[in-house]
């Protein structure tokens, strides 16, 4: 009885739209009329043969692979660093909250200005220390744009991974580490055998969460490049947006949207399984 309002709400604004997306994907509906003849799996067949969709899928996979890997590795390194006895350690730790809390759109805009080809801070810094000769157009060139965006994403989310890891590190047994050191275990061996098992659970949760978020990335890329230049940063969400709202092909857009859902569903299931395991412990 007390769950009813929630169930009702979820049904109306999530359940129904989702089912409708499933139905739409089997029709050739246009955004303007919103109905169209049933075409079976035609939209999916065409999506698989479309070079744009393939390219967008590839871009999404590259983006997720780069960002999640970098976030996990850097996040663990920073957590280990801030777990050391440092002067002002609490201040260093507190700073981590800022990138996480910064709105994504503001983050995107800030990095757009850092990469600006006329006055960007990155260009100023790199020229002044002599690494580059002239100002570069970091997000204006297809060969660097995706990586430049990945850096912005990593900057915003590494602190989150670091905070999760730091919390988990507090559960690592200091006695065990000390004992391993006395037994002559190298720093790497101590990390692998003592520390890693303790942080692996939370770290996996973080990596899965980041993958779920990464697969649907839209705002960061939209504000920085709108998917350009020459589609080099066009991920699946931007492809779906263009198909449904710029080309007005609602049916086809729905089908392409479901391709992302498929990938997300797999990751979401992993995530839920992890949560359930945590809950039962």
């Amino acid at each position, binding site marked *: *009885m*007390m769950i009813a*309002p*929630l*169930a009702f709400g*979820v049904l109306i*604004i*999530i359940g129904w*739209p*989702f089912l*409708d*997306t499933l139905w*739409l994907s089997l029709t050739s509906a246009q*955004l303007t009329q*919103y109905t169209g003849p049933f075409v079976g799996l035609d939209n999916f067949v065409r999506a698989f043969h479309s070079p744009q969709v393939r390219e967008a899928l590839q871009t999404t996979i590259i983006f997720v692979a780069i960002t999640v890997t970098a976030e996990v590795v850097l996040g663990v390194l920073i957590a280990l*660093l*801030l777990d*050391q006895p440092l002067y002002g350690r609490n*201040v260093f730790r507190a*700073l*981590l*909250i*800022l*990138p996480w*809390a910064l*709105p994504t*759109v*503001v983050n*995107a*805009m*800030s990095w757009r200005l*850092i990469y600006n080809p006329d*006055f960007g*801070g990155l260009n*100023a810094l790199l020229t002044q220390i002599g690494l580059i000769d002239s100002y570069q157009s970091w997000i204006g060139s297809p060969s660097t744009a995706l990586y430049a965006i990945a850096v912005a994403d990593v*900057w915003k989310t590494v602190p989150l991974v670091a*905070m*999760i890891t*730091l*919390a988990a590190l507090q559960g690592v047994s200091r006695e065990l580490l000390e004992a391993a050191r006395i037994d002559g275990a190298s720093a790497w061996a101590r990390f692998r055998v003592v520390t890693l098992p303790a942080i692996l659970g*939370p770290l996996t*949760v973080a990596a899965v*969460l980041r993958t779920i*978020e990464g*697969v*649907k990335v839209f*705002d960061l890329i*939209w504000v920085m490049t709108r998917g350009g230049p020459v589609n080099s940063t066009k991920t*699946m*969400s931007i492809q779906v*947006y263009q198909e*449904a*709202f710029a080309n007005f092909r609602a049916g086809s857009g*729905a089908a392409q*949207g479901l391709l*992302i859902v498929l990938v997300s569903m797999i990751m*979401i299931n992993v*995530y*839920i399984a992890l*949560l359930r395991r945590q809950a039962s412990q």
Partner: protein
Amino acid sequence: MKQPLYLRILLHLAAILVAIVTLAPIVWLLLVSISTTEHLTTLPFEWIPDHLDLSNYRQLLSLADNSRGDLFLGALQNTMIVAFGATAVSLCVSVPAAWAFSRIRGRHASLLYVVVATYMLPPVALIVPLFALLNAFDLLNTKLGLVLVDCSIVMPFMTWLLKSNFDNLPHEIEEAAFVDGAGMLAVLRKVTLPMAKPALATAILFAILLLWDEFFYAFILTNDNRSQTLTVAIANLASGRVSDYGLLSAAGLLTALPPLIIGVLLQRALVSGLAQGGVKG
């Protein structure tokens, strides 16, 4: 174990580097927002501006009709109405549901995980039907429409967060109240909620943070400044060919201010929220 001096110095240098990189994009925004365009485009770039130019902030906060300030403050108002509205609606729905999930064990557990899964779905999976739904009820480009759609983000998340918190509250007092013949709603209102005040505050702050950041739905479901939120206004300015970078940065920083403050307030809750799951990355 005492670390050798060179290692201690090295670790501190590394921590300072992390701190600088963490702050850099925010400081860059601040720098651009108080610089004149002439100063920014003069090469080689001077990192410390010779005078403080606050005209951007003055413009944004001016109340004159049809000014930049009018646009910015209008968007700020829309963001606040949508964020508070969706949070309030979700709270009414999520509190009883979370309580039921927490107290009635077993039967509804799977339903709870369905709820969690829904909010991880990519918004592109729902957007076309939601667009049509709002269109059918004449709610496109209205704040009310956005409030309803944004509930799809907040309701599941709040339910999960509150449920985890209710789990940790003692059951004995509630049971005593039941024995005394109090009804479910009375127990929830008079016994549980007063105990759960900190949890409610955390959930509300998280929800506002999520909604302040929301871009995708606002971007597609609104089209002018009557209901456009801050993120959309900034994205439109940033990806257009404006040369007024100072104004843009000032707008970004002002937009980021409330979330940054909330982030600092939430520091503790964030880490435990992440451990329990359900908090977005």
